[in-house]
């Protein structure tokens, strides 16, 4: 039983990590239906920015770690959002009317560009990412079950999910986002500035990725220029599994993935860890072809 | 007594809590032109969708008879198998293969009438070659019948709305149906174009012997074309009869025609 619970916790940790990336992914994905291959790179850039800014502050100032954490998190959010918006402007905006697959190729190109940009400007090596999250003393007794960082990640995931859900469901901008995602022309005809909406979506999605980048880097203790690729793929998988464009779906999809991997590793073999996740994915999608929380794509004929 | 081509018995279609079609009985005789009318949301298109297998009917029976008068129950059959029984349709919201040319659209319609498989395609034996030649010729003939020949090599999406509607008819005819189901063929046409359509449909029935069931809101077309009319309202059949009978039916006037 304890073992089972431990695996559940391991699955939750992994799930929240995936969710933190998938949330931003599904925002962008929902609105322009673009398989944004470069989302993982935005996440990586967030982590790098935090590492750099945090490092500079640590070296040149004597600020306490928590202050540094918040400053570098803010910097990561700002810069990631900046990269996201700029990338949209350069590589996706001219392709709004082009076939979807063309935009996908542009995204793949962008992903290569960003990866190699960081590789060249920084380093190919793994860099240590010193944990900046202080240990909560009340957690120390349960240390073997959950660490502070894990707890912070899980809480952040839930908070971000709630925030995004409220944003989409109840705000004016959210309304505009839903309209834009369904019919861009009509959205304009009811007075929505779709450029602003898309830019905003990229900014929010990228900011979320940055939060993910910083927290996950804290958890893993190291980053390099390539961490975004797999993260991006996992986010894509989670987002689709949850149902394209659905915020709670992305989180649920991530947890399913995390759990599948955790239980697969725990009860069968970790060599096939990813394979379990994919098998579960296939089974779920065969049963529910539009994802866990996706609305059935009703087609009126 | 002519053969009954399509028989719908006690048929209902339910979406969630909504009974879009409610215990309806309809039959179509060979060689008739029958219209199905009714207010918006009455369930006309839904009925078409069930008959052609796009939706699975919730209750009741749908049966199609083939030229040898063998009756086949089609509930739950796949659309392509129903097409093979000789039913073809057009769509209310035009669904052409938009990047293919007009001619190619009609050639797709010939699909069930052709044999060539993958090996035929690759090795292109004699029979495949003749078949291919034949498809192009046959398709051109059909395009010509609907006055679309000059658009043969144009992508379907670049045709005007009216031409697209006619192309849908041409494509459906290419399957050599015994029964053609037309969903609002005159929508988006001006009165002049509607008149031409009237002639075209009459010709299809008279010359090709294709039975026709159509949904239409343009009463001038419905009244001049059809021999029998069914009226649906809120999923229920409220009237049935000749155009004159229906025109005079107070229930129909109240629910649908107005004035």
């Amino acid at each position: 039983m304890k073992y089972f619970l431990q695996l559940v916790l391991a699955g939750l940790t992994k799930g929240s990590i995936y969710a933190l990336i998938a949330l931003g992914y599904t925002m962008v994905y929902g609105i322009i239906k673009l398989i944004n291959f470069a989302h993982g790179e935005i996440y990586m850039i967030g982590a790098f920015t935090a590492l750099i800014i945090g490092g500079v502050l640590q070296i040149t100032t004597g600020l306490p770690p928590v202050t540094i954490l918040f400053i570098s998190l803010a910097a990561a959010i700002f810069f990631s959002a900046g990269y996201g918006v700029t990338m949209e402007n350069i590589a996706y905006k001219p392709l709004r009317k082009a076939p979807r697959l063309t935009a996908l190729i542009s995204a793949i190109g962008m992903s290569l560009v960003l990866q190699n940009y960081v590789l060249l400007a920084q380093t190919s090596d793994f860099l240590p990412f010193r944990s900046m999250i202080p240990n909560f003393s009340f957690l120390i007794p349960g240390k073997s079950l959950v660490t502070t960082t894990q707890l912070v990640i899980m809480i952040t995931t839930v908070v971000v999910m709630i925030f995004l859900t409220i944003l989409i469901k109840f705000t004016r901008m959210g309304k505009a986002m839903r309209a834009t995602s369904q019919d861009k022309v009509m959205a304009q005809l009811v007075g929505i500035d779709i450029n602003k909406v898309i830019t905003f979506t990229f900014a929010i999605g990228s900011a979320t990725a940055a939060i993910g980048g910083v927290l996950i880097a804290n958890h893993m203790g190291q980053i390099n220029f390539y961490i975004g690729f797999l993260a991006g793929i996992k986010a894509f998988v989670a987002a689709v599994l949850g149902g394209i464009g659905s915020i709670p779906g992305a989180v649920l999809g991530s947890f399913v993935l995390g759990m599948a991997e955790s239980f697969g590793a725990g009860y069968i073999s970790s060599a096939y860890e990813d394979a379990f996740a994919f098998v579960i994915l296939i089974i779920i999608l065969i049963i529910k072809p539009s994802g866990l929380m996706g609305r059935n794509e009703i087609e009126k004929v | 007594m002519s053969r009954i081509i399509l028989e719908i018995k006690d048929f209902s279609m339910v979406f969630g809590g909504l009974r879009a079609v409610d215990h309806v009985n309809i039959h179509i005789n060979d060689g008739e032109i029958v219209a199905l009318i009714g207010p918006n949301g009455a369930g006309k298109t839904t009925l078409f969708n069930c008959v052609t297998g796009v939706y699975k009917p919730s209750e009741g029976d749908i049966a199609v008879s083939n030229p040898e008068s063998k009756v086949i129950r089609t509930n739950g059959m796949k659309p392509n198998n129903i097409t093979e029984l000789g039913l073809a349709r057009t769509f209310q919201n035009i669904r052409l293969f938009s990047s293919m040319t007009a001619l190619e659209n009609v050639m797709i319609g010939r699909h069930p009438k052709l044999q060539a498989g993958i090996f035929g395609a690759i090795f292109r034996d004699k029979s495949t070659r003749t078949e291919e030649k034949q498809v192009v010729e046959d398709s051109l003939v059909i395009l010509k019948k609907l006055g679309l020949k000059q658009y043969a090599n144009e992508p379907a999406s670049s045709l005007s709305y009216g031409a697209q509607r006619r192309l849908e008819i041409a494509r459906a005819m290419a399957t050599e149906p015994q029964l053609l189901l037309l969903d609002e063929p005159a929508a988006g046409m001006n009165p002049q174009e509607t008149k031409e359509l009237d002639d075209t449909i009459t010709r299809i029935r008279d010359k090709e012997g294709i039975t026709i069931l159509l949904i239409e809101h343009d009463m001038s077309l419905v009244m001049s074309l059809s021999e029998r009319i069914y009226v649906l309202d809120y999923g229920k059949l409220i009237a049935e009869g000749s155009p004159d009978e229906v025109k005079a039916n107070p229930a129909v006037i109240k629910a649908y025609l107005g004035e």
Partner: protein
Amino acid sequence: MNKVLKEIRTSALSALWMMILTFPIIVIKVNTINMTVNWRWINLMWVGTGTFILSWLWRYLLDRKENGSGLKKTDTKESRRFSLHKSLNDKKMRIPVLSTLAVLVLVLPLLVNFYQVSIMTSALIFVILGLGLNIVIGYGGLLHLGYAAFYAMGAYSYGLMYLYWGIPFWVALPLGAVSGAVFGLLIGFPVLRLRGDYLAIVTLAFGEIARLVLENLSGFTKGPEGIAQIPRPGFITKLSLQGATIYLFYICIALVLFTIFVMRRIEDSRIGRALEAMSEDDIAAQSMGIDLTKAKLTTFALGAIWAGMAGVLLAAKTTYINPGSFTLMESVMILVAVVLGGTGSIPGVILGAFLVTLIPEYFRALSDYRMLMFGVALVVMSIFRPQGIIPRVRKHYIVGEDQS
């Protein structure tokens, strides 16, 4: 004049923005171990000037593309670019053009060095892959992100059959195609109900599962260690490396020609039309009597056959295979070849495959900047040629003279 000033302002603003944006990553390099910070201010200048110039150029080109100014120019370019395509359709030109091409291809290995032959062979294998995936994506309209798994099927068919039974290349080639097709059908069945990106993700999953199985079943597949010393095809006797490479080049040429031949036939057949109808509107296609189940399975099986053959060729060319060659990135690159060249267009896909394999090779001179520039190339080509470099041209049927 005013316009120029405005342009300068926009460029300056872009430059400023990029300088802010790239600042942490371009300028600062921290070493948290030695606690040192390295400020590389000079880089900022490069970003600034670079952006200033490029953003100007970028806007100019985008403007030209949007507003079609210089329309005539692109028109003539277009016609030149398609001249090969056109002359092939012209009966009189066909024979001389084709024979010149043939001679060129035949003597090529004798003119260039070994490296060129080697990368050309790689490119040709990629052409076969691209054309195969084109059936799935271009004709069937199914986004397939696990194509590398089919490729792996072929490669491992040869590798394993050689390893365990010593089966030679020429036997493995058709068997590779068959195992590809079988695998295609296996994947095809479960995904019949899925559409769009849901299908894409499931194919991705299958691709990854296949790779994981190859990695983990090490008793049988040799796992990550891979299978080495797979023989190159011999011609009567065992050939020297040079000879074998050139021989393989010719085999690839022959197979590419065969692929093109089959593709053209499929494209222009009842089956090809059915696949395309399915990709354009599956409901309408079904209403036209097309069996979607059959069409989808055909798509997967047909697509997989070529990947299987390409896999055998790959194993023969590199003589060594391991699961690392069949990653998601490989599937993605094949997809890039298809879309970049022109989805559904045979000459386009061929060109796309050449570009995707040859650009990184010829960018080797840029050393570190190689993949960066490749990424840039992808973005730029997508934007300026959104329909692909050689978009598909539809067949024009002769309608007949009588206009009655």
